[in-house]
């Protein structure tokens, strides 16, 4: 029995299953919803299987076609990949449950196949060990995401989708040029082999510049964030949640991987980390201030994503001396932001559905009238602000610890300011949510499953605050950060 579990190719099925599901939804639209829900739950089970396997056997490597690198493409999963897959599955379930009632027939038929293809792309991306293969998964992810944004159909959404598509394609092309240089410099596109063969050279710098720029554009790090707020704000709600929670993280994950495996050891200490940290700090401040200035809820949340992405980059300059806590902080921030931001967008979607608008000043006592949704927003907000007890708090604690160990007071100040600004924009919303508006609006009932999906994800973001020890030991399997495994 055990052998079946430890030998089963969970990782491969994680990619093939959603692809199959997407095709089934495409072929038989009438069963799209059922298929979609089934696949998403099955994917979650597969992730559990993969986790079991990785826990037993250590890292997972699958040589597609039996060739192995450098000739073939490898799939690879360590603790970090596993965690990304897990969060994708978890948020995916929340989003699917939400979408099952959110999308009505016409849109539902379109949503499910696109979402399943996106899920396949995400899984493939987190499992890929091959930089060209990553390019293909990026395109799969990007096209699916753009089509999903455009599902909203409004003029704003179409414009935002267009801008998003252009940015995504530009990012991909820059990335691909970097891939070309790396391949011709070192004769392979396998990450592990590149890590072995690469040595400091102009090629490395050019590849870092190109791939870095492309990935930063996709990750929407300030000042390359211009495409994100309109896209995330005007997309259909579950799509906004998907984009902010998962898609942005995917490109960050690749950036992190490449940095850890290839670029970091070669160009570390040359100021790249400082630049990333600086941009991260700027993103936190700029994104937060912009969020504070918004009068529309979804735009506010989108700008909050811009700010939260900044936190992820603060870790880069802090790694040199404190390895463990800075990367652990990043892991934790990624996880908690995924959960919290998905919950927050869903809550915003519920409010939009309830009142027919998302003007913050007219929220009109939704705390009383839509308590589950308001609760979801508040709990997600706690994590975003980094208040205890929440996943966001753990991430912020670890990051602060790293910054203080290095005496980086500038970053400490930015983090604290970011937290205060976050509190500012979140309580701005909550304040109006408690307050009676001047004009009362008609309201529409919100389906219970949409409220509960948001609330449960938010609760998960809070509970994450108590799971740091197991989660951090899980992520250290395979030593993705090069600092040793922490086995409980």
């Amino acid at each position, binding site marked *: 029995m055990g052998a079946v579990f430890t030998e089963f190719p969970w990782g491969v099925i994680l990619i093939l299953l959603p692809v199959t599901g997407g095709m089934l939804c*495409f072929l038989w639209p009438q069963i799209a919803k059922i298929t979609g829900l089934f696949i998403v739950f099955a994917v979650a089970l597969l992730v559990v299987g993969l986790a079991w396997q990785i826990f037993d056997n250590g890292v997972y490597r699958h040589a597609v076609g039996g060739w192995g690198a450098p*000739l073939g493409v490898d799939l690879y999963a360590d603790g970090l990949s596993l965690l990304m897959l897990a969060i994708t599955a978890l948020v995916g379930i929340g989003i699917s449950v939400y979408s099952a009632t959110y999308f009505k027939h016409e849109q539902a038929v379109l949503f499910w196949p696109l979402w399943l293809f996106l899920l396949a792309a995400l899984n493939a991306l987190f499992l890929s060990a091959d930089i060209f*293969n990553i390019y293909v998964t990026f395109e799969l992810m990007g096209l699916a995401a753009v089509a999903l944004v455009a599902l909203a159909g409004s003029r704003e959404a179409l414009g935002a989708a267009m801008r998003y598509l252009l940015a995504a394609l530009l990012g991909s092309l820059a990335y691909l040029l970097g891939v070309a240089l790396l391949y011709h410099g070192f004769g392979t596109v396998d990450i592990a082999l590149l890590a072995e063969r690469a040595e400091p050279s102009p090629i490395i710098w050019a590849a870092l510049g190109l791939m870095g720029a492309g990935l930063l554009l996709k990750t929407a790090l300030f000042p390359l964030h211009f495409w994100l707020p309109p896209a995330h704000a005007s997309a259909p709600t579950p799509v906004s949640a998907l984009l902010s929670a998962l898609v942005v993280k995917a490109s960050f994950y690749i950036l992190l991987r490449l940095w850890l495996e290839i670029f970091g050891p070669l160009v570390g200490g040359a100021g790249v980390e400082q630049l990333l940290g600086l941009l991260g700090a700027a993103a936190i401040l700029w994104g937060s201030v912009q969020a504070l200035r918004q009068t529309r809820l979804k735009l506010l949340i989108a700008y909050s994503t811009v700010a939260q992405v900044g936190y992820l980059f603060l870790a880069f300059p802090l790694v040199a001396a404190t390895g463990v806590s800075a990367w652990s902080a990043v892991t934790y921030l990624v996880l908690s932001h995924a959960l919290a931001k998905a919950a927050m967008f869903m809550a915003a979607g519920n409010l939009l559905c309830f009142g027919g608008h998302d003007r913050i000043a007219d929220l009109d006592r939704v705390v009383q009238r839509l308590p589950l949704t308001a609760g979801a927003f508040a709990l997600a907000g706690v994590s975003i602000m980094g208040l205890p007890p929440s996943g966001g708090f753990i991430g912020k604690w670890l990051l602060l610890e790293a910054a203080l160990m290095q005496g980086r007071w500038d970053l400490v100040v930015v983090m604290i300011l970011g937290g205060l600004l976050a509190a500012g924009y979140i309580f701005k919303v909550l304040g109006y949510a408690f307050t009676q508006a001047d004009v009362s609006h008609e309201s529409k009932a919100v389906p219970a499953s949409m409220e509960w999906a948001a609330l449960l994800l938010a609760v998960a973001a809070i509970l994450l605050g108590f799971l740091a020890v197991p989660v951090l030991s899980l992520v250290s399997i395979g030593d993705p950060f090069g600092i040793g495994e922490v086995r409980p």
Partner: protein
Amino acid sequence: MTLLTWVFDSLLGLSLLWLAWRALACPDLFKAIVLFVAFGLLMALAWVRLAAPDVALAEAAIGAGLTGALLMAALAKLHPTEAHDDFTVPPEKNVTKVWSWQWLPAVAILLVTTGLGYVVLSLPPYAAGLSTEVAANLAISGASNPVTAVLLNFRGYDTLLEIVVLLLALLGVWSLNSASLDRKAAPGIVLDTLARLLTPIFILVAAYLLWVGAHAPGGAFQAGAVLGAAGVLLLLAGWRPRAGLMALPLRLVLVTGPATFVIVAVLTLLMKGQMLEYPPTQAGVLILILETAATVSIGVTLAALFLGGDPRKNNRNKNQT
């Protein structure tokens, strides 16, 4: 390298740059597209010079041909009513934004490009890449054309995902737009005849490319592109498939490629333990099966992309009203 080839290569390179520049800068969008198609054809020539005939075929068929057709169709829909004396659409106003700081990106890009050029030139003059690995395993790959071996065997996983990308693009297009299935009025006898005449030839050529791909330049993508071109021609001639075929049958054809890939992936996973690991003796057959399925899907998908919308949606809407 002889002087002649050097001159030729330099001329070709400069022509490419010049055509690209004109295509991007010329004020008339129609001309820009024509120039872009010409650019694509010259690219195909460059691929031949670079000893990449497979890429040349793909570029000519997909990069220049189908992309050009898509661009033209889009332009026609963008300005559907305005007819012009010189047979083109009106020049775009404000072709380039008159920015006083336009020099800024120009200088930045120039600097970056110079750096990139330096980096490219810093590469060693000889590098084997993966050529030895490919050659060593070619015999058991099931195809003697190394490009096909890479596409369908060594890196077959990329191709699986790529075919899904194509399907996904169609899904995206369909989610945005619906297409009419009404037969266009009076396609004209010449075009009609041409389409009737060429379609069987195109199918024949596609089959040939597919078959030849195993050992010579060609393969599923080129064949699919030719098939797609046939579809484009038929659509241009006003031909429309029966509405009844638009639901499941069309979709089944569209997913044939990716579905076959997935099935083969699962089967090989079960048999050999690794996804897409073919038994050497059956590799040739499996590749042929995969390529055939892919060709059909690619061809139909490309034609459907040219149609530019969901034919079923339109049908359904009409039934409702």
